[in-house]
């Protein structure tokens, strides 16, 4: 078992004819992902990497039974692509696109609330169920099959932590990169809930970073609702207040909330050990198993 992605996942790639879309379609297929279709308006009838392209997501779902979408559509058109995916039969949408305007995402988020679709991202690396499939741009070779779930706001930090786990022989059920934007679909709590319900997941790693209050909310959720042990990592302990470091989410307010300290304290209060280094996170996980 795993969360969100399994052997029944049939992927349509929105924006498959673009550079990124094409490259990562090949990468996903090489990993074993069942990419069944592409969707690009006006390109129906073509094929990319042997995958048939349709003009609409609905058509891809109808003709190829696609039930998940990965979105590589450029920012200006991303919201429209997401609305299309949310209106289609696919029940998982992974938005890789970086730089989607905030107001567009507010409208997408509003629509998302009316559907049962899981949206991951935007501005995220996607998700992977090792040995089964990856939807997104994560480097497959660092992951291994196993029983640890992972959820993270940051792409490369996810890779780092996974690498520390895999090198010790600790594999993963599913790793989900939820993205660092202010408005995202699946958040920590949603992902933690999925892992809690997954019988194969015996421990969870949660990688957060400074800014916002999502980690504090996750801590409250873990304290109240989770039996599966969780280990944490928070990036940005040394970030000076008021400086924005990359992600929109990674901003420390001067007012004492959203800081690494407040997040670590909230997690510790919920019984979650927080590693000082990515390797220490792996120590904690090893201790759980």
């Amino acid at each position, binding site marked *: 078992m795993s969360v969100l992605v399994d052997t029944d996942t049939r992927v349509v790639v929105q924006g498959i004819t673009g550079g990124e879309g094409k490259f990562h379609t090949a990468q996903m297929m090489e990993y074993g992902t069942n990419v069944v279709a592409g969707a690009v308006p006006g390109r129906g009838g073509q094929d990319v990497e042997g995958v048939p392209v349709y003009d609409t997501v609905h058509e891809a779902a109808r003709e190829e039974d696609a039930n998940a979408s990965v979105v590589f559509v450029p920012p200006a058109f991303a919201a429209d692509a997401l609305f299309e995916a949310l209106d289609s039969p696919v029940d998982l949408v992974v938005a890789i696109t970086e730089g989607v305007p905030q107001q567009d995402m507010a409208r997408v988020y509003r629509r998302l609330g009316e559907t049962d679709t899981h949206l991951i991202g935007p501005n995220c690396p996607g998700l992977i169920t090792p040995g089964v499939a990856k939807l997104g741009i994560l480097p497959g070779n660092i992951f291994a099959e196993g029983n640890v779930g992972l959820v993270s706001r940051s792409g490369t*930090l996810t890779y780092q932590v996974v690498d520390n786990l895999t090198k010790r022989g600790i594999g993963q059920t599913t790793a989900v990169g939820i993205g660092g934007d202010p408005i995202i679909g699946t958040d920590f709590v949603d992902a933690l809930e999925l892992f809690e319900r997954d019988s194969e997941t015996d421990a969870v790693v949660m990688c957060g970073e400074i800014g*916002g209050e999502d980690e504090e909310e996750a801590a409250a959720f873990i304290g109240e609702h989770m039996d599966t042990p969780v280990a944490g990592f928070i990036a940005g302990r040394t*970030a000076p207040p*008021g400086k*924005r470091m990359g992600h929109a989410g990674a901003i420390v307010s*001067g007012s004492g909330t959203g800081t690494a300290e407040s997040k670590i304290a909230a997690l510790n209060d919920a019984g979650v050990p927080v590693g000082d280094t990515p390797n220490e996170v792996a120590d904690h996980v090893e201790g759980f198993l």
Partner: protein
Amino acid sequence: MKKAFRYRDGRTGGVEGRSGNTNSGSAEVRTQPSMKLHEYQAKGVFADAGIPVPDSVLASTVEEAVEAAEDIGFPVVIKAQVQVGGRGKAGGIEIVEDGESAREAAEAILGMDLKGLHVDRVLVEAAVDFTNELYVGVTMDRGEGKPVAMVSTRGGVNIEEVAAEEPGAIVREHVDAAFGLHPYQARKAVFDAGVDQDVAIDTASILTQLYELWAERDATEIEVNPLMVTADGEVIAADAVMNIDEDALFRQPELEAMEEEAAGDELEAKANEYGFDYVRLSGNTGIIGNGAGLVMTTLDLVDYYGGAPANFLDIGGGAKAERVTNALDMVFSDENVDSVVFNIFGGITRGDEVAKGINEALERFEEIPKPVVVRLAGTNAEEGMEILNTDLVTVEKTLEDAVQRAVSYAEGANQ
């Protein structure tokens, strides 16, 4: 789950030297990277949208300022146009009653150094004879994923303090992004806030206009503090804060044209030119990496192992040789830097390309200016490690080892 809403710090307003466009960037929470308009620019946008603002003229010389003051008619307020909070307290805002004092104020403010920023323009504006000061604003509530409109009768003061001490004094109305702010919602917020009935309808209509502006112009934040109520029962925006979503500038060409060179650190300006996310810090271990979370983690580890990070530099995904060269140039040109740790975990970014870039950048030097420790992992990392010229760099296999090595080099440089 409901969360308390917060404000940026130092929001003040008013003609008695309390006004301040607090676009300072400090304590900025829950916003996307945004472009901050100057007060005069925001007021121009307001005026075009039919939102009442005082008569004003932008001046860049003392003569222009005096002339503008006389045209507008006294009393006028002379306001430094720099994006920093607390302009009034810092002496950047003066209210003047005649030409002589206008000249003195303009002479004092133009050319002054206001919290590290050079003042080269002032806004000369009609002083508003007010009886009351309100606060109105529109922003994105990230936790809710919804826009929120806000009203308070406690305008003209630091609204963040009001929010902290008396949260009930600010009425928040969440907006359904599909429909926008309904006029009834604006009225409800205004009446619930306790705005006088005489001016409530006008205030609500300004709030509706501000929301529309916020939505149409891809703002992340609009605030008016104070929104002044005059003795004649008029409502007028005496200050204006408007920040625009940088990710949406592609469809806001008029606003994009207002973007100015950010004043500030020379290296940070250079980073902007190269397209890096860069923040200069005070330590001596330089840091280059890919992905904000991983670069922050590298900073944290430098600190954890007893060193001091000199900077945050994210070269982004898919970094090619030229970007790598630029990144090394930047970090080398920071005189505080004694050693550099280069940490790449490739997903999109390929280790072999990074390695080529590092070799290229370093082969230009007769002597490597500062020791460089490289750690490559992920996509094509092994190819990259083979390519790296170990005469020029130290290669470490793990993040922890790489950071410790760089920290020890930095320490060694100071002995």
